[in-house]
């Protein structure tokens, strides 16, 4: 009955709402104060930087990742004042390229990485078959390979990088196979079977990208300031179990 609806609308006019804060001034101040996008000096490295990371699915055609960083950023709508110096990003590692730095022992990786290395503790995933360390990002990028290069069971990559979940979901749009997943002690994203690029800000504030290495299922996980990727022929439940066993 329109009577009830009218009463509700009138009621709406009679409610005591909290005062609207001056958001325009606050937002303008924040936008004007944002530092230009250049490498932050050591003194500005802080864990609490508000950072951006995005997951973009490869365009149709399994390995057709846009080559130019500018193209990726335009695709994701990031062009503009917030991102500068796009062309300074390192080359996207070609998908399928598992040469992720030099081979090291697990102990060396623990010692040399600029973060506390997380290792799966799940039965069936004891010591990794190969550990690699690359210094492509500050703090290093560590890869743990289980299986053989031509028959990867699980590939774990981890590095210091921060993501923003709301933007991850937004960027991908409807019909995209990325699901947020609840993982104890972290935010997770389950991405099925597509090569994809993750954009993130590293510890020095630079926007970087990292391509998944296999066209397999991926659980992308934010554990504190670490971005961890679990790639392999895994079911979602297995991937979550492995993620929860990381320590």
């Amino acid at each position, binding site marked *: 009955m329109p009577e009830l609806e009218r009463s509700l609308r009138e*009621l709406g006019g009679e409610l*005591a*709402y*909290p005062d*609207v804060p*001056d*958001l325009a001034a606050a937002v303008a101040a924040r936008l004007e104060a944002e530092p230009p996008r250049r490498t932050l000096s050591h003194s500005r490295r802080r864990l609490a930087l508000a950072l951006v990371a995005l997951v973009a699915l490869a365009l149709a055609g399994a390995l057709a990742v846009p080559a130019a960083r500018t193209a990726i950023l335009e695709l*994701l709508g990031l062009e*503009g004042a*917030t991102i500068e110096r796009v062309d300074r990003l390192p080359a996207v590692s070609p998908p399928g390229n598992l040469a992720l730095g030099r081979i090291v022992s697990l102990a060396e990786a623990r010692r040399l990485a600029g973060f506390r290395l997380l290792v799966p503790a799940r039965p069936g995933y004891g010591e990794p078959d190969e550990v690699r360390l690359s210094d492509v990002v500050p703090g290093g990028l560590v890869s743990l390979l289980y299986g053989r290069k031509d028959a990867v069971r699980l590939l774990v990559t981890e590095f210091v990088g921060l993501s923003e979940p709301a933007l991850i979901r937004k960027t991908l749009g409807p019909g995209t196979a990325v699901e947020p997943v609840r993982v104890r002690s972290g935010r997770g994203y389950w991405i099925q079977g597509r090569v994809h690029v993750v954009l993130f800000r590293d510890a020095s504030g630079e926007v970087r990208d990292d391509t998944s290495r296999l066209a397999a299922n991926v659980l992308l996980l934010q554990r504190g300031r670490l971005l961890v990727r679990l790639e392999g022929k895994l079911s979602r439940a297995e991937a979550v179990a492995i993620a929860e066993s990381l320590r």
Partner: protein
Amino acid sequence: MEGRPPDENELVDRARRGDVHAYEEIVRSYEGIAFRTAHLVAGNAADAEEAAQDAFLKAYRALGRFRPGAPFRPWLLEIVGNEARNRRRSAGRRDRLALRSAGESRPGDAAPSPEAALLEGERRARLLAVVGELREEERLVVGLRFFLDLSEADTAAALGVRPGTVKSRLSRALERLRALLEEPDA
């Protein structure tokens, strides 16, 4: 309810190209509805303020993806709704909406007789109370559609659901309200 600023498309266009002042104008015209929407969804003013502010910042950074000429309001309200929902998951006080006190009647209202005012006040309080008894998702559609006067499309955007879902939740909510109103006062 909210007036559109002149040449909103032009302001959006300038903001897309990095003109912070143009964006500030946009924020000014939407901050009211954004904050109130966030308040309804998040449940308290402090979280609503943070949510609305962060939503405006995110919207600015996402302007590159906004299709020029498309309606800005639902696009913005979707971001606001997301932010408010994110904050709702963390612990936070839930405000109860309350009626304005009698002394705050808007200028121009004819002064009612004391009896009429009392009756009207009781009727409104009862209506507000039964709205408060609705399930959260029904309470939200009622609040957004009727209290904040959002369109069905804007309500859907703010809640992150399809317009059809808003329709069905609303009709269930109205049915439930009618049933509750018919019950004698406890």
